[in-house]
């Protein structure tokens, strides 16, 4: 398990929650900071004295106060640290669950895990620490699919045209022929078949007839 952990969190009650989780995992060597700048300095100092931290658990949003900060947010801190100390593992622990933000933290700033604060936040944090320790990335379940591309099924003009032809009573063979005549790709029978099956899945339609009925209701055709 991790030997030395730094917790960067400006709200005492939350950092206490984190610490209780760490204690549950029998991690005794931890330190707490309330400012990003402090976190950066501590990590730097530890590396220089060859007693580096293994893990940083950081919030993303810090309330601005009288102290002028170089690193104003967890996002900037993670990015800077990951560039300087790529071996340091970092878990972002935040209320923020907007996919764009999560994606930025994971892909741009290169955090190792992202845990959303919430009812089950601490449980997820525990899972995240274990996963990161094993070298695996971790995302809270509610944001589990943000890194996967083609998340929303997209249809295009070709699909619309195809459904229009179906609605006009064309068979799949005829549709294929229709596109061939007009030099529109794809036009092979198998490709048409696949597209229709995909559409049926997207629209949760049992058959082509229901697909057309739904598309009509939605005003697509």
């Amino acid at each position, binding site marked *: 398990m991790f030997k030395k952990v730094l917790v960067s969190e400006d709200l005492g009650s939350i950092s206490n929650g984190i610490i209780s989780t760490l204690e549950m995992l029998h991690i005794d060597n931890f330190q707490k900071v309330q400012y990003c700048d402090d976190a950066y300095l501590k990590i730097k100092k530890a590396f220089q004295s060859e007693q580096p931290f293994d893990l940083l658990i950081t919030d993303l949003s810090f309330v601005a106060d009288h102290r002028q900060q170089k690193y104003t947010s967890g996002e900037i801190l993670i990015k800077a640290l990951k560039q300087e100390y790529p071996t340091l593992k970092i878990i972002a622990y935040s209320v923020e669950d*907007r996919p764009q933000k999560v994606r930025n933290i994971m892909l741009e700033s290169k955090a190792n895990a992202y845990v959303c604060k*919430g009812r089950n936040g601490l449980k997820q944090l525990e899972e995240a620490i274990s996963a990161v320790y094993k070298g695996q990335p971790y995302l809270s379940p509610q944001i589990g699919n943000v890194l996967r591309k083609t998340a*929303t*099924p*997209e*249809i295009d003009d070709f*699909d619309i045209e195809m459904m229009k032809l179906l609605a006009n009573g064309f068979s799949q063979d005829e549709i294929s022929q229709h596109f061939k005549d007009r030099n529109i790709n794809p036009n092979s029978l198998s490709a048409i078949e696949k597209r229709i099956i995909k559409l049926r899945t997207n629209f949760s339609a049992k058959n082509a007839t229901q697909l057309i009925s739904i598309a009509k*209701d939605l005003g*697509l055709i």
Partner: protein
Amino acid sequence: MNAHRFSFLFFLAASVFLSLKGYSQQKDSTRYYYNKMVHPTQSSDIPIAIQYYTAQSEKNQSEHNYYEAIKGLRLISIGQFEIGNIYDSESAAVQAIALIENSSHTDTLIESRVGLYNQLGKIYRASDQSEKAIEAYNLALQFSRTTIDSMTLINNKATIYKDSKKYQKALEQLELAFQKKNSNLHPQQLAMVLDNLGYVQSKLNNPNALPNLNRALHIRDSINDLLGIYSSNKSLAIYYWERNEKQMAHSFANKAYNAASSLNSLTYLKDALSLFAIMDDNPNIVQFKTISDSVSTQKQLAQNKNALLRYNVEKEQKNTATAQLQQEKERRQKLLYMSLGIFTTLLAAFIIILLKFRHKKEKIRQVYNTEARISKKVHDEVANDLYHIMVKIQSNTPSKDEVLDDIENIYNKTRDISKENSAVEVSENFTEQLSDLLLSYKNEQTAVITQNISKMNWKVISDIKKITIYRVLKELMTNMSKHSQAPLVVVSFSQEKNKINIAYSDNGIGCHIKNKNGLQNAENRIQTLKGSIIFESKPNEGFKAKITF
């Protein structure tokens, strides 16, 4: 009715009569002043006539009635000459000639032109400018078409030479005039030419002098030309006096005196009597005559000079006044433009300030609205729920999990409110951002499908529009997840350059669109950017929205 008609007819007749009377009155006054000018009986006649004609000619000029204006100016020139205002006379004549030159029908004004040049000749003769006088007569001759005019003009020209004692030149001119003679037609002119010819010849000791002088007298006698008879007798008296034939000279001088007496003119009487002074035996009287002549000549010259000076001063004053008037006019115009400019600037500034003020007010209003909305949400969703939990805990003892569930619910609601109103950062990849947004509403019950979202070119769309699109779609989706129970949502995008169409469509339970309070906000957002949003829904027929920017 009858009475009315009668009165109308009466009115008509009366007005015709009055206008005729007015017309004839004007005609009459012209004739009246013409007579005053040409045949004055009192010393005030000519100045009055000049005043009248000056006004008339100015009026005619402003009305472009140049024919009448020229006629008036010519009469003014004659009148001014008669009362000794030589330079005013010249000015009027020159002005008239200029009008003729500029006139389109120069041909019909030849007679006026000849007359005006003749008048100018007379003016220059009187002011001792013989060369200019000759020039004027030459110009008049150019336009003269009748023998009688030509004869008179040549004769006048000769008189100038005679005055300056250039007798040879005068003789040439008079012989030329004599050749033009048509004795039967113009005896008066012929006699005039012959008289002058005889006088000049006598000065040159030409033997034809006496016959010519006699012939002139004979013609004048035959037509009873009293003025002519006086001149002829005077010429003959001088002729004989110069040849020392005193008896003959005295006899003609007496005849001249008689003619002058019958002319009833003091000028001529004085002239006739001066003949006796010349012929007097007493040298003192002769000397008196010579001296008084030269004194009056000197006086005349001084007067002319003075008149010229006065005229120039008047002209200068007039020019100055005109310049001042022009200056005043320009100053006023400048002032007008300036005040117009200032007015426009002020107006523009006022409008700008007004618009700014209204814009500011609108902004403040929107801020207030947003604040009110958030406050209402906090009250409705958070405060109410918290109160419920408080009541629940007070009335019975729920399990820890139950309380936690309730609190988590509230926690999520507060986060939703926060997210809803947090700033939207438009990222580089707006398609992904939108896609994420739509995806966040996908769950086991609801599938979200996009159409052509990856084909959008967001770079040409302004950030404010992107933010609005984001917020409006979010509101639509939130509305959907709350109320529609729709299994399927399709959001279609299309774009023509920087014009965007977004169509939202679900197959949920739909609703009656009466008070779209939940969507009023979306509508406001779109309208602020001059876009449009159309909602369409019926129970059990889903919900549709069309956004156009």
